[in-house]
Structure formats: C-alpha cells, structure tokens
C-alpha cells in the first residue's frame, strides 16, 4: 500500500506562485483598450443629493465619460429574506440617486484612459449635498428621534426576529422565572473591517460582436455573481462569464455582488471597451462590507448547583446602510441557532432587531454570527461560574452534552451531527497544565502580577447547507455542491469544482481527495475552480463549506468514477462487474491482482471507444451534484493564558492552546493554517481591532495606520492538537474548519483577561481590550473600591 494522500500534510501546491509574486490577481490582467473607472464616493454619512455637476470632470484630460445614478437602474439585491420577521428590503441602487447613506456610498463614476486620470477627475465631480444627521450605533438607531435613513423604514428597524416566536419567548420566561441564579451582561460586538490582502477589483469586457460579457472579479462565489449580474445588467447567464482568478482573501466580504462590479459591467456595455476598477485600501475600508456590529443584552439562567437551564438575548444588530447578501441572516439564523453551544440547556431565546445605520453595510465576516453567539455563551458561562463560585471549567463540564454519534436535537431546532466534547476539554486542560496554572496564578497575584486563563468549549454550525433548509430560512440560493471529473486520453485528470477557494488551499486538498480515491498520482491532477464557463454550477466558498460540502460532492463523483472504471475493466478482463476490485489505481478480478488493468489504460480505451461494453458511454467523465442532508458541527476547546501589566493595561498573550475536532482531516497542515489565521483574526477582535466612527459618521479607522490589524509579534506560538469525531453524514467524515479559530478565540482571550483582572474587581470592558481601555477599567474599579 502506498502512503495515503488523504490525511497527509503535504505542502500547498498554490504556494510557490503565491509567494513568488507570479500569481495573477484581477488587477494583474491587462486588456488592450481598457478604460479605468473611479467611483465618486460620498464624504457624508447621510445627506440629500441636491445636484451633481460633472462638467469639470468631463473636461479633464483622458476622461471618456462621467455617469451618475440617473443614467442607470442597477439595484443590488439582498439574499437573506428571513421569514416571519417583517423584513423590509429598501432599494439599494448601485449609485445613490436622491440620498447617500454612508461615507463611501457611490454617487458617480468616471471612465478615463488611465487610473490616475479617472481618480483626478472623480475628485472634481461637484456634488451639492444637504447634510443630514448620522447614526452609527444600532441600538440608538431604533430610538425615537434618531435620523431616519429610509422613509418607509420606521425607526430604522429592518426586521425584528423572535427565535421560535412568542411561544418560545414564553417558554424562555418560564425557565428564567424558575432559575435560582441569573447573570446578565451587555456586550458590544464591535464593528470590524475585514482586511483582505487584496482589495476588491473588477475587469469587465463586453464583446458586442458575440454579445458576451466576461467579468474578472474578486469574488468567493462566481456562479452567484453570474445569476445576480445577469438580472441586473440584462446580459443572459449563457452569455455571461465570471472568472475569479487568484483571490487574495475574502472572509465573507467578497460574497456580495457589489455596486462597483455591476457598474464596471454596465460601463463596458455603454462604451464597448473593457472597464477596470481597482480600489485603494482606504476606499476598501469604507466601501467593502464590515462585520459584527451588535449591541447585545444577554442573560443566562441556572440552578444553584450549576445546571444551566436557559439563555436569552436582546440583540441590536447593525445592518449598515443597506442589506447585504447575507445581511439579515447573520444575526438571526447563523447566530442564535447556536446559542446552546456544547451545553445541554433547556431553552434558548433571542429577540433580534436589525437596524439600518448610516455606516458601511455589514456582511459575513469569518464566522458570521457564530463568533458573536459563542462569545456571549462563553462570556455568560464565566460570569455564571463566578456567581456560583464554581471553577469555570467545572461549570462547563457539568453542562456538556454527553457524547453522541448521530444526531443531537438542540432546543434551538437544529440537529448537531456528532459530538464528543469532554475529551477535547480534557486534552486542552492537560496541555495547559490547568491545575498547576491556578496555583501559579495565585502565587503571581501575591507578587502583584496579574495572570489570567480563559477556557472555551464550543461547537458551531457550518458547511452551508441543506438546500431545503435554505429555502425554509429565506436564503435565496441552493446549498448543494458539484464536481466534475474529466479525464484526458493520456490519463490526466481535471477536477472541476463548484466551490471557489481563495486562500483555503482547495487546489491541494481536492487533489488529495481525488488521488486518494482513485490512485491517480497528484502530479496528474489539476483542480479547476473559479470560472463559470469551465466549472459546474456551485454556490461558492463561505460558511466553511469547501471541504464539507464540495468535498462530499467530489467523494460522490469518485464513487461514480470507480463504478464507471469497473464496468470497462470487467469488459476488458472478461469478468463480472461485481468481481472487479479497484485498488491504488489498478483494477483486477478478485483474487488475481497480477492480471490488472491500470486506470490510465481503462481511460484511454474508453476515449478510443473501439470496444465499449454494451450501453457504456465513450470518453471518461463523471459529474456529481451533492445536497448535504445536514450541516456539520465542528467543535473543540481552547485556552488562552494572559498576563496584564496593571500599570499600563497591556495584555500579553503568553500561551494559546487549541484542540479542535473537524472530523477527518484531509491535510493537517492546511487545517493548522486555517486555525492559525482564524485565531489571529479572533484574537484581533478581542485585543485590538475595531471600527471607530465619529459623531458625524466619519470612519476614523480608514487606513491601515489607524485600523489595528493584529501583528505577528502579538502572538505566541499556537499550541494545536485535535480529536477526531467524524461527521456521520459527510461521506468523508469531514467537518468544516475555516471559521473555528475566530469563533472560539475571541471569548477565550476575553475571558482570560477578565480572569486576570478578577482581583481588581473589573467585571466588564468593551472590546477591543486595548491597553487604554484595560488601564481605564482598572482605574475605575480601584477608585470605586476605595470610595
């Protein structure tokens, strides 16, 4: 037996081109005759447009055309039409016509011969604004007297969603009334700016002769872009080709079809020339979607001996100025359905109010709803442990759902696929030396050193998802995936996939699955993705669905591939199909492995078609479309150890340990890489990241000088391990892992800081836990104590 490719931590085949600068991103693609587009963006958070004077811009050198919103009708749709919550979906024009609603809202476009001319001309487009009041805080936005963004959206309330309806609310009230202990917290899930290495870009090429439009674009889901764009710009889907070349990170912010992308296509239609738009970093920070932005009031109920019975919340979720693709789905479905985490709570309830604010629209950001949920659950578990004077790990252990291999029905209405939580907790506690740490912490406290530990046990819902569930929850998309295996006569394989990896290493891991399943060598396999003309329809890459759903589609294709090969082999070996064995790329009659046909020979003979079995198709191609029967639920336990300098408020992350269970791992090195990246972003939220707007709705964190992306020197070496609990329904036993790092790490680090500050009587500090905020909290607490 050769070494299995599945499970092997081989290096990513994408990396040589990526790290030597040879990869081609959208902006690297050059077409002759290209016009460059610059977008004139609102400098105001909220204003009426009284008039736009484009004459000065039109007279600038190199300018070909200037267009305002009056010239077009390109509304951007939302994709999450959540039922039973009175969702209002105001029109989102690609260029604002009567009103701008956030700093960065587009009002005009300039097309010029080069990028600099376009930007210079954009700067002299004169817009006459009547400035209106700004509103940034989603809770304040719903109050009487707040500036109103839309005439037909009273109090800026986009929707109000009660999980499980009034009936569940009543059940929740009963649980809380019967509780011995209730703990409460106000949590601000600060707004975050997804910082992709590559900002957004689009290059649209309309060919009037063939009536075909090609769009190279920074997207996570080219097929969704094709569906939406065809509706907006009127080029039918069969004449519209979307290509996602190399895409430098998305984290959810490249799911949406953006106004700028529709505008580039429309402009190419108008001018008959290719149109390119590439944003700058500061443009990206106002015009690419943001993440999180909740103000939450959360409560946890328990008996006095530590049995947690219920959890409930009131959440004000900022939508920003317009509803994004997943907008209303994030703080509802993707958030509250995981409120029970890994615990056997009796009841969970959420009252979620989606509020329009005069800020950049909010979309999925790595984890999308689940980091917010896990944060509030884990924050409350620590508060409850304090209230009951219990060790926080013991409170968690006491409430863990016992091991289950095929289904646990949570009170939120979802069914977890499989879970075995205690071994992960035990493992991480042992790695950290938890009991010794408590002694060390006590000693340190005597010496004026503030050490803290945070322990999180989590599960999450990912691998989106069963299509019928999508239909029921109003997601305007399917949740299935696809794979085509196309063999050439010489036995080389193209694996065409509907998902669209953009940093996840799919070209490597999908090749590993295929090589492992068929015995075809890695070097003979090319994984193709990100082009609607070559790949089968699929729904793209988000929600940790690449391997979980796309991998399952490929697994099914491999089964069909082997069945097809066996039919041909049986014919060539003059045997019955059911007697054919397929092993390591060799097909033979059971018991006669010496007289084998190599898969390459079978593929060649199938292509020649000289002598096919009756009813068999020539050539060698199989396709598979896979609709998952359930989501997947990876889980794990994380620990952070911090030390706080009480003089300066600086938090030093001393150790970070993560035991994750994503079922079987295709490539442990890629899994570790995903966890590393997720941890960095999650810890970034806890310690340094956050958008800051002033009272006029101006984004003050509008450059990388001001928005605090975490840096490598903030982190210790992450200590990772795993357990393996296969998903019972995923054919390869895989669960997703792309988002677990961000989901678990924010509360883990936060709780560690609060644990460290416990002797100083600090109970709550809003994130991010910057030195100033921590220092201030220490000062306030000590002043309060002495008063």
């Amino acid at each position, binding site marked *: 037996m050769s070494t299995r490719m599945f499970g092997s931590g081989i290096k990513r085949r994408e990396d040589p081109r990526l790290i030597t600068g040879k990869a081609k991103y959208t902006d690297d693609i050059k077409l002759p005759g290209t016009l460059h587009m610059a977008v*004139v*963006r609102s*400098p*105001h958070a909220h204003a009426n447009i009284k008039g736009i004077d484009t004459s000065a811009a039109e007279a600038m050198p190199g300018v070909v055309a200037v267009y305002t919103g009056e010239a077009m009708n390109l509304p951007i749709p939302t994709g999450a039409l959540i039922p039973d919550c009175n969702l209002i979906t105001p029109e989102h024009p690609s260029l604002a016509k009567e009103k701008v609603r956030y*700093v960065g809202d587009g009002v005009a476009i300039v097309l010029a011969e080069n990028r600099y001319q376009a930007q210079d001309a*954009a*700067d002299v487009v004169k817009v006459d604004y009547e400035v209106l009041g700004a509103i940034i805080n989603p809770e304040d936005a719903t109050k009487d007297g707040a500036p109103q963004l839309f005439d037909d959206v009273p109090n800026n309330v986009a929707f109000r969603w009660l999980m499980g309806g009034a009936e569940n609310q009543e059940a929740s009230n009963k649980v809380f009334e019967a509780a011995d202990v209730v703990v409460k917290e106000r949590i601000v899930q600060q707004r975050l700016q997804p910082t992709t290495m590559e900002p957004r870009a689009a290059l649209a090429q309309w060919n009037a002769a063939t009536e075909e439009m090609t769009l190279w674009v920074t997207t996570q889901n080219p097929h969704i872009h094709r569906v939406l764009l065809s509706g907006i710009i009127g080029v039918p889907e069969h004449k519209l080709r979307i290509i996602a070349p190399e895409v430098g990170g998305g984290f959810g912010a490249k799911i949406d079809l953006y106004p700028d992308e529709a505008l580039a296509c429309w402009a190419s239609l108008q001018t008959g020339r290719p149109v390119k738009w590439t944003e700058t970093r*500061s443009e990206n*920070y*106002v015009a690419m979607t943001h993440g999180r932005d909740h103000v939450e009031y959360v409560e946890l109920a328990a008996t006095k001996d530590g049995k947690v019975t219920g959890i409930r919340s009131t959440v004000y979720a900022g939508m920003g100025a317009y509803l994004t693709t997943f907008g209303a789905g994030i703080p509802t479905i993707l958030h509250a359905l995981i409120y029970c985490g890994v615990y056997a709570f009796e009841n969970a309830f959420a009252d979620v109010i989606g509020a329009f604010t005069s800020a950049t629209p909010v979309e999925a950001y790595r984890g999308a709803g689940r980091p917010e949920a896990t944060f509030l659950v884990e924050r409350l578990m620590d508060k409850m442990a304090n209230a009951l004077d219990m060790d926080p790990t013991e409170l968690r252990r006491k409430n863990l759902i016992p091991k289950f291999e095929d289904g646990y029905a949570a009170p939120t209405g979802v069914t977890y696929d499989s879970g075995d939580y205690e071994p992960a907790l035990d493992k991480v506690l042992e790695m950290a030396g938890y009991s010794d740490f408590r002694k060390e912490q006590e000693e340190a406290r005597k010496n004026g050193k503030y050490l803290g530990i945070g322990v999180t046990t989590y599960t999450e819902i990912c691998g989106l998802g069963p299509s019928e569930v999508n239909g029921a929850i109003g997601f305007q998309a399917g949740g299935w995936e696809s794979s085509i295996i196309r063999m050439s006569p010489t036995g080389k394989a193209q694996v065409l996939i509907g998902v669209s990896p953009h940093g996840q290493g799919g070209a490597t891991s999908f090749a590993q699955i295929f090589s492992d399943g068929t015995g075809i060598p890695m070097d003979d396999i090319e994984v193709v993705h990100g082009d609607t003309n070559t790949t089968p329809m699929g729904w793209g890459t988000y929600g940790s669905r690449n391997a979980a759903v796309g991998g399952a589609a490929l697994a099914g294709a491999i089964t069909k591939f082997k069945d097809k090969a066996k039919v041909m082999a049986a014919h060539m070996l003059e045997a019955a199909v059911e007697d054919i064995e397929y092993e390591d790329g060799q097909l033979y009659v059971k018991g006669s492995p010496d007289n084998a046909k190599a898969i390459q020979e079978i593929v060649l003979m199938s292509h020649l078609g000289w002598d096919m079995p009756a009813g068999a198709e020539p050539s060698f191609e199989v396709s598979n479309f896979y609709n998952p029967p359930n989501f997947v639920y990876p889980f794990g336990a994380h620990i952070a150890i911090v030390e706080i300098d009480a003089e300066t408020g600086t938090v030093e992350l001393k150790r970070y340990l993560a035991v994750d269970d994503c079922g079987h791992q295709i490539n442990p090195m890629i899994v570790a890489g995903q966890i590393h990246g997720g941890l960095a972003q999650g810890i970034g939220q806890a310690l340094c990241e956050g958008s800051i707007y*002033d009272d*006029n709705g*101006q*984004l*003050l*964190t*509008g*450059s990388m*000088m*001001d928005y605090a992306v975490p840096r490598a020197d903030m982190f210790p070496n992450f200590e990772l391990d795993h357990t393996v609990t296969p998903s019972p329904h995923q054919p390869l036993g895989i669960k997703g892992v792309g988002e677990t790092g961000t989901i678990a790490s924010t509360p883990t680090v936060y709780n560690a800081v609060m644990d460290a500050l416990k002797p100083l009587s600090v109970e709550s500090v809003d994130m991010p836990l910057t030195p100033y905020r921590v220092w201030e909290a220490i000062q306030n607490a000590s002043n309060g104590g002495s008063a």
Partner: protein
Amino acid sequence: MELTGKYTFEADQQSTWDLLMNTKAIAAAMPGVEELIPVEGAENQWRAEASLKIGAIGGTYTGVISMSEHDEPSKYRLTVEGEGQASIINGTAVIELLPNSDDSNKTTIQWVAEANISGKLARVGQRLIKATANMMSKRFFSALAKMLESDSTE
C-alpha cells in the same frame, strides 16, 4: 473637533487688528495660499486656493473664507468652507485680540475654533489634523509677525 491656540504679537492692539484685516498680508502668510480673491457681491468674503499636505494627503483645496462679527479692534469671527481631495472641511473660529496689560506693544491673539472634517481626510488624516493645524497657525502668525517687524523697521 475643537482647535484652540494663542500667539503674541509685538504690536499694539490696533496695529495687530489692521494687519489681520489686510487680505494681502494674510494671503502671503497663509501656508500654501497664493491670493485671496474677493467674492463678487459679498462683503468680507474671499475665495482661496491652497496647496496643502496633511498626513499622506497632499493636493489642492478650494474654499471660501468669510469674516464677520467685527468688533474692532478686539474680536471677529472667521469662517472657512473648503473642499478638495474628496474631503470637506468646515470650520468657524472666534478670534480675540487681547492687549497686554503690562506692555501696550504686545497683543495676544487667542482663538477657539470648531472644525468638521469629512471624507478622505477624516479617515486617513484625522489623527494628524490637530498637529497640522497647530503647525500651520504657528507658521501663519509668525509670517505675519515678520511682516510687522519689517514694517516697523522701515
């Protein structure tokens, strides 16, 4: 954003006032400004163009400067409405001329300004605006002071 500051001239209150009302002198002293062009049909209003660099954002800004609430020789209001570089700057300042009680040949200028900044400048240059404003007002007043000195030596 509130901006405050003061500067002491080696001149009496009336001479200082006259200097501050002299638009040619002001234009010459203002960093990056070539001239102040009176707005037709308006009193005490001028159009100006300035080349400035604030943080990473350098370029041309255009705007209208108005003076009002004259209370010669002790107080007036200066209003600026400017834009450029995808940014909008609005500000108003009350400027007081305080005679020095010990030395009639010294006058202290004191100002309190409220500035609103929108657009690219707000998100990229905000941190630097106070420092830049302080630096520019220092340059402005010291340039004016130099003119006073050269006048007095003539």
